[in-house]
């Protein structure tokens, strides 16, 4: 378990977590990067800027 840096909800983690892995928060959907595993720590993953066209 770790806390989502976006919304504060608990994020369940799987066993063989690796640094650099991207997981999403199931409460808010934020993409989170695993920055440490012992203890698990998450940070917001860099976002792709989206181009909406027009």
């Amino acid at each position: 378990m770790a806390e989502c840096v976006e919304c504060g909800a608990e994020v369940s983690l799987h066993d063989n977590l690796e640094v650099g892995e991207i997981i999403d928060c199931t409460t808010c959907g934020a993409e989170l990067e695993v920055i440490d595993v012992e203890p698990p720590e998450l940070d917001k993953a860099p976002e792709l800027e989206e181009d909406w066209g027009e």
Partner: protein
Amino acid sequence: MADLTAGVVGASGFTGGELLRLLAAHPEFEIEQATSRSYDGKSVGSVHPNLRGTHPNLRFSDPEELASVDVLFTATPHGVSMEQIDRFQDAAETVVDLSADFRLDTEAEYEEWYDGHSRPELLEESVYALPEINREALPGADLIASGGCNATATILGLHPLIEAGVLDGSEQVVVDVKVGSSEGGAGGGDASSHPERSGVVRPYAPTGHRHEAEIESFLGLDLSFTCHAVDMIRGASATAHVFPNGPVSKGDLWKAYRGAYEDEPFMRMAAGGSGVYRYPEPKAVAGTNYGEVGFELDPSNKRVVVFSAIDNMMKGSAGQAVHAANVALGLNETAGLEFQGLHPVGSP
């Protein structure tokens, strides 16, 4: 198995049909009667083709002869319930009304927004259905007023901000709602024919929409409300633009929404993330009793944009009514309302 009997007045209508569908699959209810004046004697499947499977033998009957049931759901146009409420209450201990007839608190509000009220003395005893806001008032209630669809979408979106003190009721609030064609009911006129209604973004009730009353009354704030018809059948999507007086962070907002809805069985949050579905949208909840809420912060305008999405046939009417009945009668809150919705899905 089923311990309680239920009746539906207005069962040939859109929300009436949904009630039949939900009650038929509900573990605790047995449908005793489904009324329609125009289809009296016909099978329910002749109007609602999805019910051919489950109710081959259920037929519409005359609303003048109401069977005695445990719960009576009334899904008639505005005005019918207030006229017939005595008959309805004679037929059932618990009446759940889907119209606007018992939603507001005072006769004065009915004077202002509708054409007055013929049974104002009942307004105090009637209970607004929306369990997320009003759960504790429901157990034991015997006259339940299911909320308006656009009002429900808006209230679900804004309530957490008021509860958490992000808004104090003095702020500017603009709500821009997009709705599907089932909101108009099975009647419909010229404007709702397929050639005229397809592909629209059509302002309707641009100002002075009656749901404004309901929302303002429940939230205790003034709001500027505008509706647009868009090309879907089910769904109401409310976008509220609010301007809090003080500074607000994303953390504050998450705290407000998680605080309000984390334990709610029918509420989901979506506010960013990746993929196609990043914010609430009606098709993600179509066919279900779920409500989705989410938000985005616009620091340069000191604005919070709040999104909420429901299926007007479910969370916005029939689903909410069954949910409220579950709470009122002490049943399992989610009984009969477990359907998760579809993906992919068009505009259900």
